[in-house]
Every structure is written in C-alpha cells, then in structure tokens.
C-alpha cells in the first residue's frame, strides 16, 4: 500500500518502509497483466483492468467484455483452492440422491467431465433433432472459460451407510456444531457435497451451475445455495473489502510457499488415521455470516477500528502504517493500541504456539435482498482451507468467542467439507482414490 498508493498533495505519507515481499506479490496478483500466471501449484488471476480505458464508456465496455483465460483443470490439487477470490462465486451444498456405489461413481464421473469442459470452454456439441440444445446458451454459442474454477467437497454425511464409505471418512471430517454466537438454520447447513463455482462474471458461474445441474439431475439435489462476489480492490492494489468496509484476508499464509501449504492446507495422509486417498485434498469450512450492516453503519469509526484492530481506510494494523505490516503484539501487551479483543489479534495472535492454527482464508461477500424487518440481508461467505479443522478453524473460532464484533454479525449456515484431491489428467475423475 505504501508503494502503490498514489500520494496526493493533501496527505502526508508516514515514514516510508521498504517494499515487503508480500506487498509486492499482492501488487503483482492484482495488477492488470493479462493471462493467468501459473506459479507453483497455484494460479494468480489477473483481474480485468478497466483503469487504462480513457473514456467512461470504454471502461464500461472493457469491464463487460473482458473474459479471463482458462485455468488449467488438471493438476494435483483442485484449482480453486489457492487463488485469491475471483469476482464472482456461487456455493451450493447438495445431497446425493444416487443409489449405491455404482451410481455415486457415475455422478462423480459426470461431474468431472462437465467440469473439464466448462473450465476449458469450447463449442457445445450439436444435437440436431435428437433433443433440446445441449447448452443453455447464456454464454453465447461458444462457452468461454472466464477463469472458471470448480471446487468439489464431500461432507461427513456422504460417509454414512449408503455407499459403503464409512471406513474412508477423512479423519478430521465432522458435522459443523454451533459456536456460542451462531444462530444456525438447519436448512442452510451441511450437505453430502459442496460445490463452489468461481469465475470472472456472474453469467459464467450461473452457466456452469445450470450445465452441471442438468447433467446430474437424478444424482444430486441442491440443499442450499448462496451467491457471492469479491469487490474490486479500492484503492487499486489493496486487498478487497468486505461489506463492513474493511479489507478482508490481508494476513494469509503464503500460497506460493509449498512448505507452508503442506503444513497448513493439504491433508496429511497417515497422520492421526488420515486415509491415503486424502493426499492433495484439503478441509473446507464454509460459514455463511450475516452482517447487520445498518447497525454497523451506526457505529463510530473508532469503535469499528478497535473491533477489527485495523484501520478502515488503508487496512493497516492499528500499530502500523501500511496494510501488510505485521502487528507487534509483544510491544503492546495491554492492548493500548490494538485491543486484546480485536478480531485480528484473537484470530491470529502471531505466536509460535498459534502458528499451526493459521488458515487459508478465502472469503466472498454476499448480498441477497431484505429480511423480515426490512434490513438488508448481506454478509460474508467465509470459506477457509486447512489441514485439520479442529486444530485450525475451530481453534481460531474458539479464540473469537465473545469478541466485540459478534454483536454485528450472525453466522447462520455453512458446513464442514473435505475438498477432494485434484483431477490429475484426462482419465482421472473426482474421488477416484476415495471410491477405489
């Protein structure tokens, strides 16, 4: 932020700091360079950059027309886990209606072939007079990939007695139980499967959902669904903001560091009874969190910033001047600058003892209408990935019990899932090792 923010004549920058590596990477991720840069196992998506257009009309046209290139579907891990949030997402939880192991296998194979096509794009096959068209057509005659990623997860209920998978359940996979501040609606919790579709545009994810649903109608049914988006970084080059106005997901582990990913994100087969098939998969926690935004907007800025522990304007921890600065809690033992109950301080105390509880946070905003009292229904689709839900998400969430922020939010849905290993090649499919 210190480097990329244009310095206006009215504001005086704080003491300048050398460009941190993270800040540099962040800038690289969200700069307008074309093409998805595949780095190590993760892909950083370039967002369409309308800022170079000269006239407002050009900018609008660029925003509408820009489509992202394909993200490679085949790989050791599912491709939607590591990248920063895309502009649009859609999360559905589904219950499997397939009967028996054979139909379940069919379901996963169908899901795989649709995902393979949708992420690569292309022309849907003509059907002549043999039936209605094979594609909804909402992306036009040629399906554009638009950076589509598809992340498939399995819930604990898939490992009941229906499919004979009970002995293959991932060791740390449980059903999400309520935390003290939760107000969970059973109709919006859990499911046999989770499916997250993310891309550059809303029509791309909706197209993918309709395609997948029509291909799997008998095998699975939607239990709950929520649509989300990630805001454009404001100002450019910063971490996108949530609907409380604060930057969200600044302090994430480094997805470019395979060592960090293997100690925090990817499952560890063999450890604590973790089955071998889980290799290269990851535990996925989804939490649907309503934000009481009208109430929030009636709270003073000082109170807002002390609840988060960061500045609202530039994302800096309250004890520093720039977004990616590391808060120094040892230097502030009584919370004079960053309160002891601040969200960032409880979530990540940055001690050697709490390092192993870090999570890879991938949150999206949601916005879906108005509640019974006439208040806006919007909030966060909190999603995170980790090696062990109890050691990581639940440890973090336990530290957050009773934080001052709880008055302004209400977690109402979501679930725990295990994001399957990636589909390695053209002959592989989702869950092959699990079903073998």
């Amino acid at each position, binding site marked *: 932020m210190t480097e990329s923010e244009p310095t206006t004549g009215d504001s*005086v920058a704080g003491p300048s700091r050398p460009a941190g590596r993270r800040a540099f990477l962040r800038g690289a991720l969200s700069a307008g360079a074309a093409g998805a840069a595949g780095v190590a196992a993760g892909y950083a998506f370039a967002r369409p950059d309308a800022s170079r257009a000269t006239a407002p009309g050009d900018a609008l046209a660029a925003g509408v027309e820009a489509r992202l290139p394909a993200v490679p579907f085949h790989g050791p891990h599912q491709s939607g886990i590591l990248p920063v949030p895309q502009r649009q997402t859609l999360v559905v939880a589904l219950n499997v209606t397939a009967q028996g192991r054979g139909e379940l296998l069919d379901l996963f194979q169908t899901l795989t072939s649709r995902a393979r096509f949708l992420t690569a794009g292309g022309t849907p096959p003509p059907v002549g007079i043999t039936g209605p068209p094979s594609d909804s057509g909402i992306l036009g005659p040629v399906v554009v990939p638009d950076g589509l990623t598809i992340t498939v997860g399995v819930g604990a209920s898939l490992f009941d007695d229906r499919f004979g998978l009970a002995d293959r359940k991932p060791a740390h996979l449980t059903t999400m139980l309520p935390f003290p501040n939760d107000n969970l609606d059973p109709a919006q919790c859990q499911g046999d499967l989770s499916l997250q579709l993310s891309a550059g545009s809303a029509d791309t994810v909706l197209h993918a959902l309709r395609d997948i649903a029509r291909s799997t109608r008998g095998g699975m049914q939607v239990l709950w669904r929520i649509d989300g988006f990630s805001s454009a970084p404001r100002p450019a080059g910063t971490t996108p903001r949530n609907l409380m106005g604060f930057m969200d997901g600044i302090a994430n582990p480094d997805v470019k560091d395979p060592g960090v990913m293997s100690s925090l994100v990817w499952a560890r087969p063999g450890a604590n009874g973790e089955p071998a098939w889980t290799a290269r998969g990851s535990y996925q926690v989804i939490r649907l969190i309503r934000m009481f935004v009208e*109430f929030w907007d009636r709270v003073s800025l000082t109170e807002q910033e002390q609840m988060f522990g960061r500045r609202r304007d530039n994302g800096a921890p309250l004890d*520093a001047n720039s977004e990616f600065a590391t808060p120094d809690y040892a230097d502030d033992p*009584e919370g*004079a600058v960053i309160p002891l109950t601040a969200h960032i301080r409880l979530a990540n105390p940055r001690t050697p003892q709490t390092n192993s509880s870090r999570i890879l946070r991938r949150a999206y905003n949601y916005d879906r209408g108005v509640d019974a009292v006439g208040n806006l229904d919007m909030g966060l689709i909190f999603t995170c990935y980790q090696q062990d839900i109890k050691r990581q998400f639940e440890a973090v969430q336990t530290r957050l019990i009773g934080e001052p922020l709880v008055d302004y939010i209400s977690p109402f849905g979501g679930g725990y899932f295990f994001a399957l290993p990636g589909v390695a090649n053209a002959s592989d499919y989702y869950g092959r090792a699990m079903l073998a």
Partner: protein
Amino acid sequence: MGALLALGILSGCGQAPAASAEGVISVTTSACGTGWRHPSAGVQTLQIHNAASSAVEVTLVDAYNGAVYARVDGVGPGTTRAMPVNVGSGAYTFECDGATYGNRTGPTVRVPGHVRGGTAIAPVSTSQMDGAIGQEAAYVTSGLATVARQTAELAALIKAGNLSAARVTWLAAHMSWERLGSAYGMFGPYDDEVDGTPFGLVNGVNNTAFTGFYRLEYGLWHGESAAELSGPANTLALNVRSLVTAYPGMATLPQLALSDLALRTHEVLENAMQQQLSGEDDFGSGTTLATVEAGIDATRAQLGFLHPLLATRYPNLGGLYDWLNRLQDLVDAEKTSRGWTPVGQLSAQQREELDAAAGQTVQLLALIPPMFEADPNS
C-alpha cells in the same frame, strides 16, 4: 457575512482536501500536536504522527472552551493516523492523553478569517458525568429490586402449579428486566444467565445451559409441567438475587460509565429491532412487542439521565423524541384487550410503519455514543 458563509460552504464541499503544507502533526515525549505551521480553513485530513514511545489519544479542541472537534484513539508509537476535520476560523489546540504518556496540551494554533467549521462537542464536566451515572445506578438498583420480587413471585406461582398466573407474572417480570436497559454486557455473565437465548447451544432449547426468562417462556407456552419448570424458575430467581448483590460492585470509571450509558441509549432499541421486532426472540408468548415497549421505556430513562448533556449538544433532540413517540404509539396500538399482537400477525402496512419508525429512531440515537466515547486506555 453571507459571502463569508458561502466561502465556508465552498471550502467544505466537493473539493480536494486542503494542501498539507503544514506537514505532519507530531506527538513527542515532550510535546503534543506540534507542526501545524500554516493552518487553513476547510475540510482536510490532518496526519497525526506519534513519535513518542507509548500510545496516545489525540484530541483536537477549541482553545477557548475545550470543545472537541475530532479525536483519534490509541495512536501507537511510530504510527501515523488520519484525522479528518472541517476546520473553521478560530483557535485550536491538541490534547494528548495516554496511560503511560500522561496528559499534555499542545500550542495554540490560529486559523484566520471568518469561515465556519464543523461542529464541536463541549466537554463534559465531572459533576455532569457523576449526575448522569448516579441517576442511572439508582434507576437500575430500584428496577433490579422489582425484578427480584417478581421472579420470586414467578417461582412461587410455578411451585404452586398456578401456570396461568405464572404466564402473567412472567410477562411483567420480563418487561421489568428489559426496562433496566441492559445491553453490551452491562451485567456481565448475568445477562446470559437471566436473559440468554438457546441460539448457539447444541440441541438448542433442550440444552441445560439454556436458562432464564426465555427458558421459562418456552416451557410456559409449550405445555411443560410445573414440576419441569420449578428448577428453571428457582434458578432465575436465584440469579437475579445474586445480581442484586453483585451490581454495586460493577461500577467502573466515570468516563467509561458515561460512555457505556451513551452506548446503551442507542443499543437497547437496536437490539429490540434486531431480536424483538423481528420475532427472533419469541419463544412462544408472542410478546416481543412488549419487549420493544420496555426497551422504549429504558431508552427514555437513559435519555433522561443524559438530558442535561444532550440539551446543549444534540442538534435536534425534539426530532428524536418525535420519532420515539411515533414508535411508541405504533407499539402501544398492538396492546389490545386480548394481549400483545405477535409480530407474525402484523399486516404488511403495520410492519412497514413499525420498521420505519424503529429504523429512524435508532438512526437518530446512533448520534449519541460518539459524543461521549471514552478511550479505555486513557
């Protein structure tokens, strides 16, 4: 004067903030708020840099009467924080406070001309502060005695098996509780013990940690027997008695007590809107509008304690009371000879009118807490 006012408006709207020729406003171990060398009127963002070795709260005040224009809390050593402010002509000074830093006042800075700036809030005198919090403490002490008497009566009725009388007493006792105006954990763990919901508990209403008024409401309106309800009723009466004893020991520093009182003046109806007007906290009795009514009573009482302070600081106190009255009229209209209307039975028009009045009321109440905000570390 007209031309000067127009100038003030021009400099206050739609214009890039004034240039920063004055440089960074600095706080050092020996001086507070130096470096504002060429001050000018207009909307601007002052940059406050803390070069001292401990956290400070920095306040920009009117040098003549101490009225507060802007404040940033908890500015850490080595950090720079933005202080947006609409500067008018006049004399200003910075005040710096910190638990370790101590208290310092900076040099007086004069802004020339005749430009009108933003609104300043007058400081609160110790006697005003003590007056407000003393009145609230007396109100809560007296209200708690009522709740203790009513919850004891409730437990006795349940023990005697008189559940229909218990339902009447439950409502009276619950309204007395809500009239205390607790919010933001005013009573510490007692808030949940006495008035907690089952949300967030595994197995919800069947969890034994679900205690208090809502536990009894659930039982009284879901056909539970006197025998089943005796335990929870005794627990409630006992917890209220313990709170009566504990309450005097919950007193805090006057500045924080005033800050909390101001927060509650907004928060009680905010909570009522979120949990009662929505019907979320209806566990069978359909009396969430009675709870809103009690919340209005609490808010009125709190506004009363703050009245001497608000009369000179709140720009349109009459407008706030107008909306509060309108909300109360709408709520009162739902108390009929058959009891309170459950919110689920409100017509779309009644619902909209209530939501609008409640929403506008909390919007106006929300102006109060920032006027009395205290930094817990100062």
